[in-house]
């Protein structure tokens, strides 16, 4: 389908991920939405790599790097979320208002 299709899909997925991040109350779901956004970006990168080939397949390699980073990030993020949920006994982020002014 041409690059435009892939990019459109990518942007839609990104929007969905953003919506999930902003609209859901569960902390873990927010992290899941972040993963969605990562994936959307990866898709667009690989699409560019296919249609506008850069030197040394930079797009695909970069997508791989992003995957690694995402893995690290979700690891640490989940550890944090687990700690927070254990402390406050609830996964709902709008209960975490200690930094409220």
């Amino acid at each position, binding site marked *: 389908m*041409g*690059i*435009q299709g*892939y*990019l459109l*899909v990518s*942007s*839609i*997925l990104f*929007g*969905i991920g*953003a919506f*999930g991040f*902003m*609209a*859901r*109350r*569960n*902390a*873990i*779901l927010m992290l*899941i939405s972040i*993963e*969605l956004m990562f*994936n959307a970006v*990866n898709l667009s990168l*690989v*699409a560019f*790599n*296919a*249609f*506008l*080939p850069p030197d*040394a*397949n*930079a*797009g*695909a*390699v970069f997508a*791989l*790097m992003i*995957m*690694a*980073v*995402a*893995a*690290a990030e*979700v*690891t*640490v993020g*989940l*550890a*944090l*979320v*687990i*700690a927070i*949920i*254990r402390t406050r006994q609830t*996964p709902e982020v*709008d209960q975490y208002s200690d930094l409220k002014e």
Partner: protein
Amino acid sequence: MVGGGLAVVTLRNIIHSAVAMMICFGSLAGMYALLGAPIVAAAQVLIYLGAISVLILFAIMLTQAGDANLPAPFHRQLPIAIVVALAITGLVGWAVVQTDWGLAAEAAGAAVDEIATAIFTDYALPFEIISLLLLVAIIGAIYLARRPEEDERAN
């Protein structure tokens, strides 16, 4: 894939959402394959479907966050969130559509050996740094998710 994504963000039960996420990831792997990047597709399956999804499911289990069907899964700022998300999508999409990409059909994909060569020659440094990053992440995650040690308290 888009349907999977929508399912992720709208389902009430978080475990259902996690499963929908896995479906989404799987579809993406297929897309990568279509785009002529098999190694990325393989990595997608391995890392996302194999590691991250499992990790998330474990986290859900550990915190029992999904047991209760939460009465109100959405924030009060839902309407604004919809608007903003639509705005982002719309703007980027519109930009994409407007641009004259001016290119032919799919060009060559990325063969496995090409990517491997690229990683170990041109991108050797980022590769090393990523491994360091992963190490740090592991250490951090272990420390953060620890329960307080009974032994230490006994001491």
